[in-house]
């Protein structure tokens, strides 16, 4: 062994030592957590998370949970991917301009999050499970899973559970109750209006379309999706029954698949600049001859109606449905 190797191994050894010390240090920090009077415990997919006192400064790493905070009348301290959020989500509550951007949703910037010194970080399972340990070094972290594998949980129920947990974490359970109660009222109102309206059929399918490879891809929402639950609440009937459990709440179809449901009303959202109905499908014989196209039972819900959001998105969705179906 020559001297370069020696130097190399020496360097290696010293780094191991350093590393050994540091990992102990972090463990100490995590263990100290006594429950005080104000403490709150919330449940996410990473188990129970206890906060000494309700959180004031929250960093959210997924849009839906930012929306939940806004519904409770609170601005997040930091949030991921703010620019894209504005392109996709349309709700009444405004996101304040001084919310800090903490990077992309997939690999949020840990240092930027830490710089905000948050009391709570909220993440989403399919993106942030892998970095849970790092996030916990910054602040208590709760992760939610909006797409449970458990078929018995519908995604609306998941949405309200998560909303209530977040409300608990920021000590706004009263507000949360009000928001949900208000939403229930809105459902009743909408139901009455739909009832009154002279619809040929209350059967519907709800879709989200975009240009896939060479041809439109159409997501048809399944009965367990949040959006479909809302349809049912206002007296419409989702007729799409998937062949298999769809964990994300939608099946992917092409035009051929739509023939099964041509007698229902067709509710859809589509991005204006990617309007597959006006561009690709306009001259397609199959599309043109579908009953809901021929009989003009197409209802456009608008491009920024976020079908995967929280209570505010739910309200936007139901307003849009009533607007287009009743007042068309």
């Amino acid at each position: 062994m020559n001297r370069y190797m020696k130097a190399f191994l020496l360097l290696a050894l010293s780094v191991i030592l350093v590393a050994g010390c540091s990992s102990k240090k972090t463990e100490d920090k995590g263990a100290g957590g006594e429950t005080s009077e104000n403490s709150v415990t919330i449940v996410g997919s990473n188990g129970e998370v206890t906060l000494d006192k309700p959180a004031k400064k929250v960093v959210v790493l997924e849009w839906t949970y930012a929306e939940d905070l806004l519904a409770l009348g609170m601005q997040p301290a930091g949030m991921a991917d703010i620019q894209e959020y504005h392109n996709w989500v349309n709700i009444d509550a405004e996101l304040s301009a001084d919310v800090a951007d903490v990077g992309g949703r997939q690999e949020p910037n840990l240092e930027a999050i830490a710089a905000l010194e948050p009391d709570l970080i909220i993440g989403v399972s399919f993106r942030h499970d892998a970095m849970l340990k790092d996030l916990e070094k910054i602040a208590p972290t709760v992760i939610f899973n909006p797409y449970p594998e458990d078929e018995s949980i519908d995604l609306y129920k998941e949405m309200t559970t998560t909303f209530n947990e977040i409300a608990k974490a920021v000590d706004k359970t009263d507000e949360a109750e009000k928001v949900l109660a208000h939403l229930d009222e809105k459902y009743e109102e909408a139901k009455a209006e739909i009832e009154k309206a002279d619809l040929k059929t209350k059967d519907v399918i709800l879709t989200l379309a975009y240009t896939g490879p060479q041809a439109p891809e159409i997501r048809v929402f399944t009965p367990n999706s949040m959006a479909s639950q809302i349809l049912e609440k206002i007296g419409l009937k989702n007729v799409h029954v998937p062949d298999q459990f769809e964990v994300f709440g939608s099946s992917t179809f092409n035009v051929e698949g739509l023939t099964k449901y041509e007698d229902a009303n067709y509710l859809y959202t589509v991005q204006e600049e990617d309007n597959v109905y006006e561009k690709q499908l306009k001259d397609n014989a199959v599309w043109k001859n579908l009953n809901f196209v021929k009989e003009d039972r197409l209802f456009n819900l608008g491009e920024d109606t976020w079908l995967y959001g929280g209570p505010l998105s739910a309200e936007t969705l139901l307003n849009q449905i009533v607007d287009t179906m009743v007042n068309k």
Partner: protein
Amino acid sequence: MIIGLFLLFVLSFIHLTQGQADYTVSQLLKEVWVEGRIQDIVLSLRLPRLAIGILAGGALAVAGAILQTLTNNPLASASTLGINAGAYFFVVVSMIFFPSVLGDFPFLVALAGAVLSSVLVVTLAGKQMEPVRVALTGMIISLLFASMTGSLQLLFENQTNGLFLWGSGTLVQLNWSGVAFAGPMIIILFIAALGIAKPMDILSLGEDVASSLGQNVRIVKLIAWAAAILLAATTVSVVGPIGFIGLMAPHIVRMLGVRGHLHVFLQSFLWGSVMMIGADVLGRLIQPGQEVPVGAMTALAGGPWLLYLAWKTAKSHTKGDRQMGGTLKPVKLPVVISIVTILIVAVFALALSYNGMAWSLDWMKPVVWNFRVPRVLTAFIIGVMLALAGVLLQGVLRNPLADASVLGVTSMGGAGAMLLLVAIPAIPVQYMPLGAVVGAAVALGIIMVTAWKNNFQPMLVALMGIAISAFGSAATQVFVVKAKLAVASALVWLSGSTYGKGWEDVQLSLWLLVLLIGPAVYLTRSLDVLTFGDDVASGLGLSVKSTRVWALIVGVAISTAGVAIVGTIGFVGLVSPHIARRLVGFRHLPLLVVSGLLGGLLLVTADFVGRIAIAPKDIPSGLIVALIGTPYLLYLLRKMK
């Protein structure tokens, strides 16, 4: 020929009965003749799909046949030469930045990419068109484009959503416009190909013979290249990149005993169509009602085939030794090491002090200490490991272009990890490395088994690696499509990321490095002896075979350890040994030390750039490495005549 036609007919019939709307065969047969729903579906959805499949399969097969003659290389096809990857990259770029251009001129966009990558490959591979060199060059070009495509897809997640499926090719059609566009093009090009069949017969006797027979070799070659590239670009612009058909179909035809280019082209077209339609039928049988990309199906069948071909090619090219290069006037080792160390210290200082938004020199501050320091250290150690693996593998294969990704270890590792994610969707992402280790082990196993008898001929091992690598990346693509939403995190992992590495990772990687560096150092002496050639080496009492086996095992182990910790970061293992060789010559011990240090330097730099370039967002360091490393590699390829 008759068998082929019959098969095509049967498969086409089955193809037409498949679709999301369930109709029985008798319903279809009865009602297709009258106006109505069934006729609409058949005429505007199913028939165009069938037609585009037949055209695209045929076009790719003919392109492959032409390219194989032109490069006198049984491994050539639009996908192995990087033509597909180049065209696809251009399509993705314009989809993001110039959507209207893509909408209006999809073909021109794809063509530009196809031409660029084939020009690159041809100029870089050199005049002799030596098969392995061409294949390696094509593969590196593909890697370059694929990594750039991957980074764009990551950064523009929402804009490129639908592209994953197309990325592996799909035949979905909505009307006849695709056929109307591609059909005439392909038919004209096909006729042109048939027109130059005779001259190509002569050309395949050798250029000298051809020109002495009075043929204008240049013009024939030009037309042939143009036809092949245009055929490939046309199909990419309509159905996406589809691999392997261009490779397999001409071979099957030649195996059937067809001779003469006229018949080879005709039959290749036919069998290409049969394979394409067959793959599409199969894909839809496996998952009724859902789209399985047809390109993935062809790749899964084609990978093993490529393996077989590689084996055969290598057998007929037993003399595969090449100069490893390296300077004969090495710079003094202490000088090199001090300079590199100074550079490392400088980059470390920079990387630890700047986070993309603000400078801070307090490295012990908890934020920096918890996140930045371990991340930079991990990047350094992994960089060292990857570079060490590169030295060993290049030494074994006596091929300056070898590294873990060329051996297929990296891509099989990626495929293994993705398979795990698809098979057990609930599994936490942390377990992906486990799948990676298994995948890499499979790749190594295949190489061991196939190369054992041939005494680990460097050429053979390299070709096997390319085949395995192609198979692995195809499989990865299928899994990415299947895993749907989990895709974002998988993609980050696949492109290699030093993001969020903590002290545990530093410890783990350091232990692995300490464990594996001993055997690596021990092997350097035997590798030095091996550079004199097999005969001399065994004359000196070295067991050539066992040296190769052990260096292969250690090299793969080191790179797999790296892949398991940070995902698939390529290029470090390829580039650092090269730079080191130019500095300190070809003796393996100094080479190992210097290239290790350079590898560390490279990855720390890449990590730093990825962190600050678009802060607060993060670019995976694997992509940065590829972007830094590829130009250097291209330059090297150019120089190595």
